[in-house]
């Protein structure tokens, strides 16, 4: 009985994950090599050419998504690091208040916040309207439906997922270690680059994992803030699945996206010298 206890405890959750996370991947693989249409039904034909066709057709959107994800991630690191640093080292006893302030916007639906940005950035909206009527901006100046709006929306929506892991890593840095470095005549910037920064890298690593992947797969920001020129691969997958009902193409695109991300994550882990991605992510 005692030896069975962990298995009995893990069973319901384990089954849930197995049935609804692992098994669907197999079904998606199967769907991606089927042929047919929604009216006449789909037949398993092991038609792998759909991968090549889909990739050729939507290459632009794939590359655009990767580019948007990359730029948004890099800007997020630059914005989040100083903020996490200040909260961790200068936040004093109000640290938890600052963290709460970072998280509070999340109590408003993701979609609704993005729609609010659309209000703000509309051509005659609260930000551009007054500037235009004051003659500070030309009348044909737009922010909506531009790359800038989509990348800005991505950064806005995922920034807390970068701030929190970096904060957690910095918070674990013992201030005594920094003091010791300074006692040993390290200048302030040296203490930072040689002690604090390396110790905080696992946090940056976790932050990149938590932002790059969802940013690249996002379709809400491109859908609400972008135009036809900003379509991301997520928009394509969503449309193929839910509007066109072209399940094989949609499944093939999803698989390609997932495979590309897995390869990216492992390459990134390798580049950082982390052999085991799980170990780094678990910290």
């Amino acid at each position, binding site marked *: 009985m005692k030896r069975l206890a962990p298995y009995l405890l893990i069973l319901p959750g384990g089954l849930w994950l197995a049935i609804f996370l692992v098994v669907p991947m197999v079904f998606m693989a199967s769907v991606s090599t089927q042929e047919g249409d929604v009216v006449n039904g789909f037949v398993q034909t092991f038609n792998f050419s759909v991968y090549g066709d889909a990739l050729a057709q939507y290459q632009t959107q794939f590359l655009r998504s990767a580019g948007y994800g990359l730029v948004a991630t890099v800007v997020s690191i630059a914005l989040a690091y100083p903020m996490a640093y200040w909260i961790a080292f200068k936040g004093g006893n109000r640290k938890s208040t600052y963290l709460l302030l970072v998280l509070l916007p999340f109590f408003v639906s993701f979609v609704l*916040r993005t729609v609010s940005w659309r209000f703000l950035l509309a051509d005659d909206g609260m930000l551009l309207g007054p500037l235009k009527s004051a003659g500070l901006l030309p009348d044909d100046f737009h922010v909506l439906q531009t790359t800038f709006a989509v990348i800005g929306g991505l950064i806005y929506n995922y920034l807390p997922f970068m701030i929190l892991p970096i904060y957690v890593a910095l918070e674990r840095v013992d201030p005594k270690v920094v003091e010791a470095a300074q006692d040993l005549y390290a200048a302030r910037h040296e203490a930072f680059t040689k002690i604090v920064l390396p110790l905080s890298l696992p946090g940056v690593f976790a932050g990149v994992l938590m932002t790059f992947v969802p940013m690249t797969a996002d379709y809400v920001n491109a859908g609400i803030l972008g135009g036809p020129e900003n379509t991301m691969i997520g928009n394509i997958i969503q449309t193929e699945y839910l509007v066109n009902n072209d399940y094989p193409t949609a499944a093939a695109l999803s698989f390609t996206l997932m495979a590309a991300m897995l390869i990216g994550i492992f390459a990134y882990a390798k580049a950082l010298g982390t052999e085991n991605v799980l170990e780094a992510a678990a910290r």
Partner: protein
Amino acid sequence: MDAPAPAGRRSPLNTRRLGDRLLRVYVWLIIAWLFLPIAVMIVFGFNDTQSKSNVTWQGFTLKWWGRLDEYPELVTAVLNSLKIAVLATVITTLIGTLMGLALGRYRFRGQGATNLVMFAAIASPELVMGASLLSLFISAGVQTGFATVVIAHVLFSLSFVAITVRARVIGLDRSIEEAARDLGASTWTTFWRITFPMILPGVVSGALLAFALSIDDFVITQFTSGATQTFPLWIWGATRIGVPPQVNILGTLIFAVGVAIAVVNTVNARRRT
């Protein structure tokens, strides 16, 4: 507050203080940026707009607060969101707590695999999760709707609850349980009287997280909902024809409840430690 700087080190200290001050301003600017669309949402619930596009400010009114039921499908969508969130939270908290207990307390075969799958559940993009679930439901001939949304919501919040509880279980002082057992308490009594109260804060924050994740979710919900509408799905649909002020008001109300719960939880946590 600060001790006066010694004469010889005055200048580096001053630049340090200036740097800190600038950083502090920077932190508040980012916080302001994070809250900007929230402020817009709240303010535009009071906008005396004439058309359906609630974009420009046209004066203050309270009239929308009295007309919250003007769009019956919107009310249904909000109620659906709440029902799904409650149901998903109950299921997730139950089975996630059991997982957290197993992972925090025991070493067993398959532990590594469980951790791997939990990590995959957190790291895989929602789009891929939603797409693969839809593939499963299509292949199995399952009609998507309320039940499949609940299944999906349990799936993506389960790992978060398990990890939160596991952290709490690992941090427990086992000697208190041993003492209870030495004093003749059965395994069952020890669990309910000693262990459970000690892990309860972890269970509560896990449940809050699951609820927040569920009520906000858009992507997986869109893939698994079929004809069932939730609040975020209704807003997404409305972006094409114009978002009515009622959406802002309902968003404001959900925000207010969330803030109240978070503040109470934080105050409680501070009192306990």
